């Protein structure tokens, strides 16, 4: 067979060594097939790999070309640069019983051969290539025992058992392809042992294989399948084919949505992390996540294989638009390898509004009373108010984490500084932030403040900048 050259990567071919080997074997008195005949055989049988053959092709090679022995060779190492090195290995297979009867390896480096005064030392790669091949062939026995009668080969060429995991009562299929000539096909009895049951495989002429189909038992567990072939020369040896798992148990899944909580509900402002937790160590085949609004309408869905460690929802629809504030349900469905389904819901509230700040300014006894209020019930993380003069000098500042809050500014300080500016910054516990600027604080005083003492005064939007 053509010599494989591992130094050239996967499926490399060394033609010069193949030719040298053929020549050397012929000189040794062996009858060697021509390179073309071997390549023709490889093409006919779609053999695309060098260095090895399976039993079926070994038998074919004997039947088609009358070959008694096959010699496989491979170049394991090849370094042309100094110090040059080569490593060879060879295996001889007797085709009659498909048995490896000899194998050897040889290697040589230019520095391995050092003689007195440097005489007759190999210098180049070509020198050691020839020497290594000679050494390998010298190690090979001169004659081999030839077997004339063909011995019994392995019975099973291919077996498939599917599916690997299924629900109780599902169908299991086992297909068995046997070695041998078509004359014995169908004359053999192929039995499958499944637990305590025996199932006979039926020969299918169209596919030239045996097939058995049976229902999985109702009880969960792993069931082994053993094959037994008898008749037409087969000795009834048991062959372990594999096993399948019957699984009727729904996966135990829990869902944890990570985000800030308000009134026992997870709030989404920027994003929430959805963490699936498998309560039993079962492999998940695939999953699907669905977002539903409060009416149960599906807004978006996503799916994938396996089970991710976590999922993230940014509060967007599939088209990228943000969903409006409100209550939503996240549903995560998961299927195990036997298609047992589990669905777990979780509630989330989308809340993106900024803090709603209200301001009222009153004149009381020649002093200004500034009253700050918060419009909704979401607690604030912090707020800060600064009153600045027309020149940008901070006259008064206040800070805190709760509203309402009132503070008094003496009327004299205000009159001396001209127009007063108010800068108000607040952030709620979800990260919603607002900055409002009022260019003329004193201009916000109602004309007749005595009539509106008991009323809430809502700050006008004039000069206000929302930057959330």
């Amino acid at each position, binding site marked *: 067979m053509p010599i494989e050259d*591992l*130094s050239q*990567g*996967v499926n490399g071919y060394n033609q010069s060594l193949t030719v040298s080997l053929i020549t050397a074997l012929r000189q040794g008195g062996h009858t060697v097939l021509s390179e073309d005949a071997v390549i023709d055989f490889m093409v006919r049988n779609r053999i695309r*790999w060098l*260095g*090895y*053959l*399976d*039993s*079926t*092709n*070994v038998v074919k090679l004997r039947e088609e070309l009358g070959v008694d022995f096959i010699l496989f060779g*491979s170049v*394991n*190492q090849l*370094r042309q*640069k*100094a*110090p040059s*090195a080569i*490593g060879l*290995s*060879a*295996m001889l*297979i007797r085709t009659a019983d*498909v*048995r*490896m*009867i*000899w*194998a*050897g*390896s040889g*290697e*040589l*480096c230019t*520095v*391995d051969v*050092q003689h007195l005064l440097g005489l007759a030392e190999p210098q180049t790669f070509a020198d050691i290539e020839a020497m290594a091949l000679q050494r390998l062939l010298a190690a090979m026995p001169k004659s081999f025992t030839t077997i004339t009668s063909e011995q019994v080969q*392995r019975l*099973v060429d*291919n*077996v*498939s058992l599917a599916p690997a995991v299924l629900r109780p009562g599902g169908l299991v299929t086992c297909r068995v392809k046997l070695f041998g000539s078509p004359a014995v096909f169908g004359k053999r009895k192929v039995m499958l042992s499944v637990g305590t049951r025996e199932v006979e495989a039926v020969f299918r002429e169209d596919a030239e294989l045996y097939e058995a189909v049976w229902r999985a038992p109702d009880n969960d567990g792993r069931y082994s399948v053993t094959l037994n072939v008898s008749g037409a020369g087969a000795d009834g*040896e048991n*062959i*372990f*084919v*594999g*096993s399948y798992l019957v699984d009727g148990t729904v996966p135990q899944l829990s869902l944890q949505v990570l985000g800030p909580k308000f009134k026992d509900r997870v709030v989404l402002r920027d994003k929430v992390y959805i963490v699936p937790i498998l309560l039993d160590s079962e492999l998940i085949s695939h999953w699907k996540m669905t977002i539903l609004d409060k009416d149960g309408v599906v807004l978006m869905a996503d799916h994938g294989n396996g089970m991710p460690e976590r999922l993230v929802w940014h509060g967007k629809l599939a088209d990228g638009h943000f969903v409006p504030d409100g209550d939503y349900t996240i549903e995560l469905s998961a299927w195990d390898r036997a298609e047992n389904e589990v669905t777990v819901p979780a509630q989330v509230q989308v809340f993106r509004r900024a803090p709603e700040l209200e301001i009222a300014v009153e004149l009381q006894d020649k002093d200004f009373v500034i009253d700050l209020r918060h419009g909704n019930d979401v607690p604030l993380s912090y707020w800060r108010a600064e009153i600045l003069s027309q020149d940008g000098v901070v006259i008064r500042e206040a800070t805190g984490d709760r509203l309402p809050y009132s503070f008094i500014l003496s009327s004299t300080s205000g009159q001396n500084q001209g127009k007063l500016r108010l800068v108000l910054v607040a952030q709620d516990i979800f990260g919603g932030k607002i900055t409002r600027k009022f260019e003329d604080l004193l201009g916000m005083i109602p004309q007749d403040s005595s009539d509106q003492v008991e009323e809430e005064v809502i700050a006008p939007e004039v000069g206000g900048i929302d930057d959330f």
Partner: protein
Amino acid sequence: MIFKRVTAAVAFSGLPRFLKRVGLVFSLLLMGQGIVACVGLDLVKDKRPYLQEFSPAPYGVVCSVAVLPFSSKTGYNQAGRLFYRIFMGQLVQAGSWQVTLEGDIRKIYRQMHLAPWVKPTPEQIKIIASRLGVERVIGGEILSMEEKVRGKAVEPKVEVRVCIYDGSTGKLLVATIHRREGEEYRKMLHFGLVNSITGLSKIVVQEILTLWEKKGLVPCLDVL
């Protein structure tokens, strides 16, 4: 000049010259003894290849074996296949084994959708052994393989882990870890040096098989 000064210093130390010489000879003897002891200790410590047994002996008479493709954790080109070919060659040479063809193993790997670099599960090993009709399955991985060329000198290094599995159960019986460098075989000057990765791999395999033979793991091994 310096020598003279040192001599003078010794003369002034008050100790007679002959005592100094006796002391020197004694020191040399002690040093030599130390070196011998160290080398001896090193030889005693060197228990390579290292064998880890996962199942109690005896392992029974076994004469059919399948060698699975070796996976490689190194960047060395085709390290797994290189070591595989050498291992197969040495195994066949080592005794009257019935070694499964590489082609049959690769065919079953394809049928089972197993990649050659993936370690099979015990059930997969059991299936492979049963399909191929072998009693033992050998598999392993190349932990490191490198060959440094410095001028005319070559420094090969090989580290492997080779395991024997019971074909009837798929369970791991023994694991052997072995590490060698070409320099370790130097006898004198350049003599004994191993100058190629294939040559070193061959020696590593021979040493592993010798250990297995001693432990009675592979009774079919005739002569190594």
